[in-house]
């Protein structure tokens, strides 16, 4: 296969003696030769056999050499076959000109000098050998591509598909146009691997892993794209996850019963238990707990792997969290005589993380350290800032690990050798879970250790309060996000109390708003367009991102909002944020029509993160409302006002205040009825209330269910009022003014 077939030379001359002498001269070159006496015969041979070089006399009876050559060139297969003309007329320039015009020719003048002829033929044959080898290797490359189990496409730099194999065709079962539509936009992310969903002609959804690589194709830059059908793989994977989840759940129920039965006996509920019995039951109990942990961790890892973990991310003070977690290990530390210290630098920024999950990471790491640290040892938990990241280290003075072990500890069920220290046997999943959780927070977790020197488990989290950290993290998240089909969606942000803000801050408010628009959307997504609707205090964001990507964009916007608020040192009350998403396919031109819809949604939107506390003041006397309002605003509490019962109910349902200050005597619906109506609705039944009244309301008059509502008599002592307000709002005065 490697060597091209033997290369034949075709000799064409009407004179048989000339043919014989030609053949004799070329004998030494060791090429098979075919002799013919006419142009017609030459053409017939060329149709039947592979010829590498033609030597042809110009003057022949029938069609002459030049005409024959023209016919040879008209056939695709012999378009490039080299021809050497042999002519007796040295001066026939016209013939030579016509011969050269055909391309790929040379000529020799009789009488022939054998050395020159051999040299010329040899040179031509060597060139031809290289050309044929190239064609051969290109053919075998195509054969490999053709039989490749992955779909292979080659796209040139004009985005034209210049080659695709059967597999690619059948995988996609689409016309070239559809194929282009499905691939492009993505294929330009060179040297990348990504997953994409394609619907083939039989309406089946295929999940495909696409890799693209820059190559040279026939001398021009091109892109080699391979498509691997991973639909089945994905399906099996999700079945596995589903199985783990269901199995874990089914295991919990009987385990719970066994655990409870054993602990009831241990607790002596059914009579005294001897020390020996206690010890034996203790084994059962410990192993129940262990099985419980295993199930919990299995569920955790399967949720993480299936991407089902939902994070509730807020700004978390790492120091406080460390203190809390270390406190929970205090008892273990003193039992095991291990010194547990924690050190958090004063400059450590807040981490933007799910507090419970971050706690889980720390618990897993510290728990792991306890497993490998002997009595009298030391475990230190430290946090500092390094290279725009929050760096946390859990170090121990334990047995340490070899480099091979260091790599393996994050694999599932790789719990090392802990028996030596009698620690709680782990599930072998703790470190894997911790690593995954940190990665899902945009950070990384790794181990550094030496045998006998103790170990350090280190994790880094991006510093969302630094511009670099934020941008890097966003870039990474966006790169990971799956871009979807083109479908425009609309999203809106509205600032609470925009008219008030404008009145208070004037041009500065507008500037802030525009700046906020920039900050919020900058770099989030290339396909996002933003309109600042200054008159209504809304930012309308139009994106043709896939609808299922919207939660991600929404999340990014929230990060940015939080971050911006930090930078500007804004009190939360001044820029409460409402975010509404309207997932509505439309084109950009249709967006204005959607603004109305958006506005409606925005005003009904759920209040998100860190919005200020809101108090609804209900009183028919305006001056009293104003008085309260001033006091509340002074304490950075947002105020909404109602002057009668109907209005109170409407505002309570719409704005869901955190507290209602309610006058009992109102025109129309009375205060009592307001309380009853609020109780009836799930959305408002939980809102705490303070009754403020001039009439003599005693608790006797209010039915049993309202007995817990505090009643304040007019004239109101403001200190008493705020003592109640703070209690009900779960606030402390000092904390109100800073975010």
């Amino acid at each position, binding site marked *: 296969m490697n060597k091209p077939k033997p290369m034949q030379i075709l000799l064409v001359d009407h004179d048989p003696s000339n043919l014989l002498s030609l053949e004799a001269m070329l004998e030494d070159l060791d090429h098979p030769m075919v002799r013919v006496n006419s142009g017609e015969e030459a053409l017939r041979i060329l149709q039947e056999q592979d010829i590498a070089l033609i030597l042809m006399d110009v003057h022949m009876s029938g069609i002459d050499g030049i005409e024959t050559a023209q016919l040879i060139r008209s056939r695709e297969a012999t378009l490039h076959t080299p021809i050497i003309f042999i002519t007796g007329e040295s001066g026939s320039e016209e013939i030579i000109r016509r011969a050269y015009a055909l391309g790929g020719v040379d000529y020799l003048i009789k009488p022939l000098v054998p050395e020159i002829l051999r040299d010329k033929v040899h040179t031509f044959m060597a060139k031809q050998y290289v050309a044929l080898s190239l064609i051969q290797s290109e053919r075998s490359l195509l054969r490999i591509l053709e039989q490749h189990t992955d779909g292979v496409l080659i796209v040139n730099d004009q985005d034209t598909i210049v080659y695709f194999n059967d597999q690619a065709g059948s995988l996609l079962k689409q016309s070239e146009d559809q194929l282009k539509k499905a691939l492009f936009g993505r294929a330009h992310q060179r040297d990348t691997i990504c997953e994409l969903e394609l619907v083939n002609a039989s309406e089946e959804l295929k999940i495909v892993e696409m890799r693209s690589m820059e190559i040279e194709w026939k001398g021009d830059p091109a892109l080699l794209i391979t498509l691997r059908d991973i639909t089945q793989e994905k399906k099996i994977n999700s079945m596995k996850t589903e199985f783990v989840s269901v199995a874990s759940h089914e295991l919990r*129920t009987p*385990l*719970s*019963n066994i655990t409870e039965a054993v602990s*009831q006996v241990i*607790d002596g*509920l059914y009579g005294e238990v001897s020390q020996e019995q206690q010890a034996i039951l203790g084994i059962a109990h410990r192993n129940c707990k262990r099985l419980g942990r295993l199930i919990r961790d299995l569920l955790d890892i399967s949720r993480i792997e299936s991407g089902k973990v939902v994070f509730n991310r807020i700004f978390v003070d790492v120091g406080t969290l460390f203190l809390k977690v270390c406190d929970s290990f205090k008892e273990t530390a003193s039992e095991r005589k291990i010194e547990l210290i924690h050190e958090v630098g004063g400059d450590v920024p807040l981490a933007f993380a799910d507090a419970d999950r971050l706690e889980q990471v720390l618990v897993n790491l510290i728990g792991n350290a306890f497993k490998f640290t002997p009595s009298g040892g030391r475990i230190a938990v430290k946090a500092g800032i390094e290279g725009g990241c929050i760096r946390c280290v859990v170090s121990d003075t334990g047995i340490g690990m070899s480099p091979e072990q260091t790599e393996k500890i994050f694999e599932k069920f790789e719990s090392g050798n802990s028996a030596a220290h009698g620690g709680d046997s782990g599930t072998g999943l703790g470190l894997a879970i911790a690593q995954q959780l940190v990665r899902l927070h945009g950070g990384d977790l790794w181990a550094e250790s030496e045998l006998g020197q103790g170990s350090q488990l280190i994790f880094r989290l991006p510093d969302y309060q630094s511009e670099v950290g934020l941008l890097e993290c966003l870039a990474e998240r966006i790169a990971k996000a799956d871009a979807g089909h083109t479908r425009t969606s609309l999203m809106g942000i509205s600032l609470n109390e925009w008219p008030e803000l404008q009145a208070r801050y004037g041009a500065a408010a507008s500037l802030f708003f525009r700046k906020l628009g920039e900050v919020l959307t900058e770099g989030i997504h290339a396909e996002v367009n933003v309109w600042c609707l200054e008159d209504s205090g809304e930012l309308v964001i139009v994106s043709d991102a896939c609808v299922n990507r919207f939660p991600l964009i929404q999340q990014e916007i929230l990060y940015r909002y939080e971050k911006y608020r930090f930078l500007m040192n804004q009190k939360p009350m001044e820029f409460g944020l409402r975010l509404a998403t309207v997932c509505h396919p439309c084109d950009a031109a249709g967006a204005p029509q959607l603004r109305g819809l958006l506005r409606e949604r925005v005003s009904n939107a759920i209040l998100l993160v860190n919005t200020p506390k809101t108090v609804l003041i209900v009183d028919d006397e305006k001056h009293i409302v104003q008085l309260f309002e001033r006091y509340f605003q002074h304490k950075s509490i947002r105020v909404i006002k109602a002057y009668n019962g109907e209005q109170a109910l409407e505002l309570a349902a719409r704005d869901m205040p955190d507290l209602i200050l309610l006058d009992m005597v109102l025109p129309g619906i009375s205060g009592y009825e307001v309380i009853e109506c609020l109780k*009836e609705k*799930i959305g408002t039944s939980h809102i705490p209330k303070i009754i403020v009244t001039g009439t003599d309301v005693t608790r006797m008059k209010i039915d049993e269910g309202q007995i817990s509502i505090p009643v304040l008599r007019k004239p109101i002592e403001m200190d008493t009022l705020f003592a109640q307000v703070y209690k009900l709002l779960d606030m402390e005065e000092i904390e109100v003014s800073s975010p």
Partner: protein
Amino acid sequence: MSAEKQAVRILVVDDDSDVRLLLGGRLRRNGYEVVAAEDGESAVQIVRQENPALILLDLGLPKMDGFDVCRMLKADPATRRIPIIVLSAKSQQTDRDRASALGADGYMAKPFDPGVLLEEIRNLTE
């Protein structure tokens, strides 16, 4: 500790008879009076008849699931104030959030810590 306490009535709702037996035993020995229901419909019925001081509620129940029981009891002014602790093998945050949105007062995943459960019951019935 429970001698001077007037028997506080607790309703245990679980389709697993072992759970009813075990929880019943634990609670009785801690001075509580226990009534039990094995499905959602009878749970609602028993709540109305027996007026328990607290409900321990499983989520996966026949006839009417725990979420619906919770929704129904919390919507009725006569039963709204009875604290409900969900006790379920479901441990996902979404289940917790859903139960809490429906008005459940507590949530414990199985296997549970009996000490923590008793404390939670004490807090909610005092």
